[in-house]
């Protein structure tokens, strides 16, 4: 098990090097000069342009810039944003809890609905329920997030008035963030109704962000269950006279979960990608929106730092999934 763990962890290092190289190169390959973008129509004189380039270190050879960047990362410094002049790390971690909170809720939504629905669809294979659910899953998977979000806002907030349009909590509540997680902070604030307000603000973004993972998890669970339900040991369990609920819930589902967990791990990356759009629609102050702004303004340090930190999160989650996978499936950790 230790060897398995160490191998997985060792694999993370080249991945990190690759990510720093890729983000550094890609943002520079995209056309667009951050200084020109900052100056807009007004423009800057060539002398001032050169001065500003030098002040950001862009006048140095690219390889030297990369070396400085990597060296700074190793010292825990991701640089300062070109736009706000604030440390990238501070900006990232101010916004990150909002994205994490939304992603966790979206994932819970996807798992708690996707798993049972997938299991039921497999058990009632070919039924109206199966067809409906799988059809809906396909629709959910193909739905453009932006359109889906606006549709929900117009219907639930605009027409029915059940949910707030956007934001994390009603503007009535004002307290300094403690953890950055609004659900926790609203409870800590002790203000009446703050928690309910935070929950009501989470409903629509959770549904929108959770839709694609939900569809994927439901479909994956169904196909994994179908495969497992045909196995000998399930037939044996049934033949032994075990209750169907126990056969499905314990014998079948536990084995079917292995590929599903991998998919859930991979969905974390999908969630971050989806968060970019979801956060924009719901004015959710998370890193997705921040990153898009940084890219459009060619804020090199923010883009590099932001992507590196997001990639780290995705890698760590997948590493955790790999380890869990190893735990529940012994065959994997002994494979050479």
């Amino acid at each position: 098990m230790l060897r398995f763990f160490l191998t997985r962890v060792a694999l993370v290092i080249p991945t990190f090097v690759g990510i720093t190289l890729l983000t550094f190169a890609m943002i520079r390959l995209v056309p667009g000069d951050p200084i020109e973008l900052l100056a807009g129509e007004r423009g800057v004189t060539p002398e001032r342009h050169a001065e500003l380039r030098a002040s950001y270190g862009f006048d140095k050879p690219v390889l030297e810039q990369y070396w400085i960047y990597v060296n700074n990362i190793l010292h825990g410094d991701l640089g300062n944003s070109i736009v706000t002049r604030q440390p990238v790390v501070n900006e990232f971690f101010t916004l990150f809890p909002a994205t994490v909170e939304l992603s966790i809720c979206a994932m819970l939504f996807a798992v708690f609905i996707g798993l049972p629905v997938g299991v039921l669809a497999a058990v009632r294979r070919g039924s109206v329920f199966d067809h409906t659910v799988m059809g809906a899953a396909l629709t959910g998977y193909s739905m453009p997030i932006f359109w889906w979000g606006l549709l929900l806002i117009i219907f639930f907030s605009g027409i029915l008035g059940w949910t707030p349009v956007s934001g994390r909590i009603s503007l009535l509540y004002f307290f300094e963030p403690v953890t950055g997680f609004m659900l926790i902070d609203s409870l800590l604030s002790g203000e009446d109704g703050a928690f309910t307000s935070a929950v009501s603000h989470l409903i629509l973004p959770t549904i929108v962000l959770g839709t694609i993972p939900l569809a994927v998890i439901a479909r994956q669970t169904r196909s994994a269950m179908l495969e497992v339900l045909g196995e000998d040991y399930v037939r044996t369990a049934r033949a032994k006279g075990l209750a169907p609920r126990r056969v499905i819930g314990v014998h079948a589902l536990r084995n079917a979960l292995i590929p599903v967990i991998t998919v859930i791990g991979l969905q974390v990356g999908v969630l971050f990608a989806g968060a970019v759009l979801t956060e924009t629609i719901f004015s959710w102050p998370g890193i997705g929106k921040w990153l898009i702004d940084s890219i459009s303004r060619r804020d090199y340090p923010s883009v590099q730092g932001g992507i590196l930190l997001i990639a780290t999160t995705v890698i760590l989650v997948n590493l955790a999934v790999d380890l869990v996978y190893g735990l529940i499936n012994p065959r994997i950790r002994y494979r050479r």
Partner: protein
Amino acid sequence: MKRTLIGAGVVMSLALSPMAFAAKTLVYCSEGSPEGFNPSLYTAGTTFDASSKSIYNRLVEFDRGTTNVVPGLAETWSVSDDGLEYTFNLRKGVKFQTTENFTPSRDFNADDVIYSFMRQFDKENPYHNVSGGSYEYFNGMSMPDLLKDVVKVDDYTVKFVLNRPEAPMIANLGMDFASILSAEYADKMLAAGTPENVDLNPVGTGPFQLVSYQKDAVIRYKAHPDYWAGKAQIDNLIFAITQDPSVRYQKLKAGECQIMPYPNPADIEAMKADADVNLLEQEGLNVGYLAYNTKMPPFDNAKVRKALNMAINKQAIIEGVFQGAGKVAKNPIPPTIWSYNEATVDDPYDPEAAKKMLDEAGVSGLKTKIWAMPVQRPYNPNARRMAELIQADWAAVGVEAEIVSYEWGEYLKRSKDEDRDGAVLLGWTGDNGDPDNFLAVLLGCDGVGGSNRAQWCYQPFEDLIQKAKVVSDHAERTKLYEQAQLVFKEQAPWATIAHSVVYMPVRKEVVDYRIDPFGGHIFYGVDLK
């Protein structure tokens, strides 16, 4: 579960209604996060709304809703006969805001003015390099060349000494970068070793003071209780940062905010019909244009440029691109700016005459390029569509145009090239309401290779605008600029396309919100019913 959800929704809807706020709270659905809170360090309008417009004052101000300069922190001022010295008599009894970080021990005085300008001007100033130390507006307005010194005469008198006469100087001092910060606060923060606090936790003399800021989410202000012009009618001001225009409109409809900027053009009709919304509109202080490269043949010939201008159906552009929310431009400055020449006769739309003029100029089978901006701007909501319409108009007179576009930063950079191929669609929004801010920046000889995209340096025009820069008599300046507009029209370095209309949806309960011609958003003077 469903019932609980409905219950929560109803509770929320009630809680969100403006009635629920005990104190008068105005919520503005702003379009983005400010870059920071010191307006001298940044250039974005979003930043100015959140900082200079609410927290700070300047020596002179623009009268709300107009481009007229009125006294601000300076009560009166005088200009020396040679136009090189501007003396300001400062207002007494002006209080700075008291915040968590700082309690002022004195009123505003000359030291604050000296600090605010010397920080930007003097590279040796201990604050010059704080927070990145880049003062692009100060530089952009040529202040480093223009200023010789800023001198404290006494506690309530400051003198600006210039290297050359500059008539727009007063208007320049009303701009956001010229906001006045507290020198006492700066000294205190410097002594504490935290100078950047001055930019992060602002202290100004303005109508609102910052309470808290959560990036990308919300900015909270409260009324400055001792504001020198009288406490604001609203007690709290909140910026609910909402990037998407359609979502902003949904929030406005739901009463989650009372004012929103930059509506989606597609929502305008619905807003007009909305009983809860007043749709304010005003001509913007902007111009959208097509700049020829007057250095490259055959565009170095004014007749060719004039002919191409006559081939463009501008009315069709107003309808097709601006959806009616614009006005055909005949001058390079918008009608809301003083000295706008009503007498200018625009080039008529006459393809036949245009064809003839091209023949006379010996131009046939002309192939060129039209540069279409990749972004939406106030002066041009859809450059691609505009370029297509012009392309079709030119095709009708035998000119074949190819439409090109680049990423925005690249576009701005490449369009400056003096040997650029083709005509560039671009525009400008005024900074200070002075004609010089349009004519000298966009068409002056100094701007060639830079902000003068037509690369046009025409001496008779240059003489007029240079003279107008140094003359302090307003009537004489007006005459010079009127003449300059006629010379411009005759020489046609641009096709002047349009001035757009700015829309501002506000809820019915909002009283006396006025659209700022400079495109800013000002909440002092606004009340709620």
